């Protein structure tokens, strides 16, 4: 587990700018944190999660960074069920098609 072999699909992480290197005129909360970057590519060397490794991206760029994910999955989905949306749907149909009572 967490072992990366050359050729594996890996997401790497970099700190682009430390808080003190960031642009002027940022909101206070943003000023306190670094500017971070993530990109994915094929590992050009063996290693493990947490190691500094080099990857080759799909455009052929070679980028170094800390390996954070092996075969990263997409985590977004349709979320939790939202009852409020069903309430809206029922109300709309009632107003338009449900007769005079709800007008």
């Amino acid at each position, binding site marked *: 587990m967490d072992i990366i072999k050359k050729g594996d699909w890996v997401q790497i992480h970099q700190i*682009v*700018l430390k808080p003190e*290197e*960031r*642009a002027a005129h*940022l*909101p206070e*909360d*943003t000023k*306190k*944190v*670094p*500017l*971070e*970057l*993530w*990109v*994915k*590519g094929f590992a050009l060397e063996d290693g493990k999660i947490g190691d500094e490794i080099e990857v080759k*991206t*799909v*455009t*052929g*760029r070679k980028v170094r960074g800390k390996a954070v994910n092996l075969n990263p999955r*997409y*985590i*977004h*989905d*349709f*979320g*939790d*069920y*939202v009852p*409020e*949306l069903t*309430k*809206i*749907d029922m*109300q*709309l*149909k009632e*107003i*338009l098609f449900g007769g005079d009572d709800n*007008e």
Partner: protein
Amino acid sequence: MNRDMSYDAVMGRKNEIMKKAIGIDFEVFESGGISFDYERMMREAGYSLDEIQKIQSSTGVGNTPILELKNLTALARKCAPKGKGAKIYIKDEAANPSGSFKARRAATAVYHAKKLGYKGVIAATSGNYGAAVASQAAMAGLKCIVVQECYDSNMVGQPEILEKQRVCEAYGAEVVQLTVGPELFYSFLSLLEETGYFNASLYTPFGIAGVETLGYELVMQFREKLGKDPDKVLITHAGGGNVTGTARGIIKAGAENVEVVGASVDLSGLHMASDRDFNRKSFTTGHTGFGIPFATWPDRADVPRNAARPLRYLDRYLTVKQGEVFYITEALSVLEGIERGPAGNTSLTAAFALAQEMDEDQTIVVQETEYTGAGKHPMPQISFAKQNGIEILFGDPDTEIPGKNIVFPDHPSRIKVRDFDLNKARASYIKNAINNYGKNEISKQDLEFLVKDTKSSEEFVLSVLSELGAKVE
């Protein structure tokens, strides 16, 4: 050849990097003052409508259908005074290859990049434009990098932006993801310099000209369908390209009497560069956080002169609430059987309210829709808002406070027309122009330019200038 890659050094090479990456010499359109020759830039650096139609049809872009929204019109009439309630139509731009009108913009940018011999294209966008550029680059056989502002400092991403990452990767692009902050521009410049790729900016003359076909097509299709021009066209406004391109196309179709109405989601109070606020908004585009800054100072963009100049074309600018847009997105789905992404329904929401001010025999066309799916849908977006402590309520949308709550209207009649005072935006634009120019005396040519760029009058510009203590030579 170890170049200095520090923030200051890269930003200092901005002009040099941009010139190589975009292939336009903007200098030739400059006057030396506030004004520049906008129409000449559009003519010489862009493409003609005819050329763009050819470019777009060769990649399956455009000719999207116009649909009549009969049930939504009926619902608006139930909420409106007797005799009121214009017919609402929608141009289904989700039918474009990448699922939004942005395919039009990307088609011309990628065509241009390929013609000039670039090996790849780069776009800085968290929105549908990334998908559009990636899709067009795939067709053209060019490499593509999309740079996104995606995460907060806890690596929590907006579901909508995570979906854009997925779709860009699906089209074969490399996606570079960043945390919140305007220094995205530094990473963007570094990548342009490293790769020598083309800057597929949203704001080039050919990008904007790519949207002209939308306005032109819309008028032509409408005339064919109804034998007349629409009374109003509703356009979601963010960076200004949608408004500018569509309005120019409408004018090119000779439909000068059509009222051009912009609409944005009201996100007032949220700071666009704030790490904390970033995940407390439920709309990542089409909102006032882009709409107002880009209207009042278009030249803040990633090109020296922005081809998107919304104040030149807007007749009216409306704001809607987040809860209202989600509500109308549901209505489009359950009353019309058309499921589309929420952000693209911003102008539809404004149209629903605006139609109620208009007579029944009048017509209103909403000029876009966008694709929907995991992440880009009311359900994940409302779930995400709840996870971020946003309260979800029913009631009067006017009580909505961006970043604190989302208020669904408790009845569709609660969805209202809210005018943003365009004269306020115009005055702010003129102030920005004077401040950036740095002189208090402007030329006659500058005055004429300011009148055109704000779609106002000499009298109006002169009155703002006198308030600022500036004068015309």
